[in-house]
């Protein structure tokens, strides 16, 4: 303990070191904060991370590109579809192959549904951490409905492993479009309901407005991306800045907020969900017919039906799967990024020409956003720290990899 000099007429206080986490309800998993507090005021905050370090990047060097897709689910388990899609796009960019138009639209659809699923739970948890538990239960109801949709396309609720290099694991089923239509129709009503509960909620507004401010310059210097950057007033979105999957053809806005506080992040997330709905509506109108997998590229796996019924597909399948075979990209290095719900999800891949990546680096948005956290909470109250933490939506799997 250190003694701080007491000013004239004030009581002398001593600062105290305190540990929050790694097992603590407010830390959403496995974060550990070592905070120095002067009464209730945080004077210094040192986050300790790595409690969920799994060795993804090392493991990737021993797995082929398609084998990494199931691992990419488990990186950010709140938005696994966006990870699947981001990773597949990165490898496709390395290989230099084009995917089919149908695949492109379906990926946009599912990426936006994934974004809604992530944002809705993030808003719910933010409200829960500030005491509004019912919002969390409501948002989980919505997430369950999204799980139903994910299940129809991929068979999995959480870990979808839906993409393949050069295509998708399978085409959508007939009940997919009606399910999404139904969801799109009624979901804006849910957003209105959540806003009705929170926007004029005295506790919520008092604990969010002006809390955890981050200026534009700070955000850029810390490399913060995603809703956090946009809540600090920078209209940067990878979907616009570096369009992929034909995002430049969709009509949507990039919501921003000038304040950069916890409230702003909540507002930006809500607005982004509305924009995602807009994108989904446009994509639903225009799902092209045709195959979902670009078979002619010789990189993509043929579907199971033709493997069992067609000689050429069977040979092709074995060529890709058998030990010692598999596609081999040209040697080279690539950095590819997509807009995941938390920000810029980047993949830096070094290929040495074999079937496994030589080096695979994931640029984790949570990790880089979290670097700004100590700055945001210094001088704030301990309870504000909880609010800030919830607003950042730090996913430990992605933070520690």
């Amino acid at each position, binding site marked *: 303990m250190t003694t701080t000099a007491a000013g004239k007429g004030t009581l002398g206080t001593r600062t105290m070191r305190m540990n929050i986490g790694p097992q603590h309800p407010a830390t959403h998993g496995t974060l550990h904060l070592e905070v120095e507090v002067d009464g209730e005021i945080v004077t210094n905050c040192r986050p300790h991370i*790595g409690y969920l370090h799994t060795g993804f*990047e090392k493991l990737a060097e021993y797995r082929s590109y398609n084998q990494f897709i199931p691992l990419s689910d488990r990186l950010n388990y709140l938005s696994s579809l966006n990870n699947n899609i981001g990773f597949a796009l990165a490898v496709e960019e390395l290989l230099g192959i084009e995917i089919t138009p149908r695949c492109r639209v379906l990926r946009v659809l599912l990426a936006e549904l994934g974004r809604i699923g992530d944002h809705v739970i993030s808003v719910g948890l933010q409200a829960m951490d500030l005491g509004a538990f019912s919002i969390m239960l409501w948002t989980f109801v919505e997430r369950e409905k999204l799980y139903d949709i994910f299940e129809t396309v991929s068979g999995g609720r959480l870990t979808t492993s839906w993409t393949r290099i050069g295509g998708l694991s399978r085409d959508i089923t007939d009940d997919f479009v009606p399910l999404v239509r139904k969801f799109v129709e009624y979901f804006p009503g849910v957003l209105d309901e959540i806003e009705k509960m929170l926007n004029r909620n005295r506790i919520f507004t008092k604990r969010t407005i002006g809390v955890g401010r981050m200026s534009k310059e700070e955000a850029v210097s810390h*490399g913060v991306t995603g809703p956090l950057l946009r809540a600090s007033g*920078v209209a940067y979105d990878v979907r616009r*800045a570096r369009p992929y999957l034909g995002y430049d053809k969709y009509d949507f806005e990039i919501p921003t907020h000038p304040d950069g506080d916890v409230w702003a992040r909540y507002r930006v997330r809500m607005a982004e969900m509305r924009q995602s709905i807009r994108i989904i509506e446009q994509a639903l109108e225009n799902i092209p017919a045709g195959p979902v997998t670009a078979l002619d590229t010789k990189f993509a796996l043929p579907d199971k039906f033709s493997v069992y019924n067609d000689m050429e597909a069977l040979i092709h399948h074995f060529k890709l799967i058998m030990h010692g075979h598999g596609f081999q990209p040209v040697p080279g290095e*690539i950095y590819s*990024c997509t807009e995941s719900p938390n920000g810029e999800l980047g993949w830096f891949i070094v290929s040495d020409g074999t079937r496994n990546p030589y*080096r695979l680096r994931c*640029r984790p948005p949570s990790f880089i956003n979290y*670097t700004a956290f100590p700055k945001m909470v210094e001088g704030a109250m301990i309870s504000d720290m909880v609010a800030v933490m919830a607003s950042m939506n730090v996913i430990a799997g992605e933070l520690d990899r």
Partner: protein
Amino acid sequence: MNANHPVVARFRERFAADVLSVEEFRGQTVISVKAPRAVEMLKSLRDDAECPFDMLTDLTAADYLRLDAPERFAVVYQLLSMLRNERLRVKAYVSEARPEIGSVSSLWGNANWLEREVWDLYGIRFLGHPDPRRILMPDDYEGHPLRKDYPLKGRGERSHFPKYTAEEAP
């Protein structure tokens, strides 16, 4: 960004002695440099008048043990210019004998943690780093796991813990 961009040309002119190569692959430009003046180079890119690379998107490293490369390690900087929407990659090669390079934590806020991660996983020291601790692995961990000569399954760290059974309640 292509390799003929004026920023790249200016950079080559200014640091001609230290630039190893400028390559373009799939429309992405990579500048490979020698490590000693890396901080100065990155500062010049950050403060470029026309195309300032104000965001350090990512900082990582790669171990080129089994590939043909000027040195064993490379520290990789992914830069982004918010103003011009341009991306650039700088690779600074670091030798195996002296794995060290200057720290850019004074230039960008997020470099502090990213450099700690590179130190943790690759064992590359960052000179002038304000807080050179491990970040992902436990503090008492030995070795740098992302190096190519480190085994995937570790060196037995996974099984060194006390064991509790149902019979001997603590």
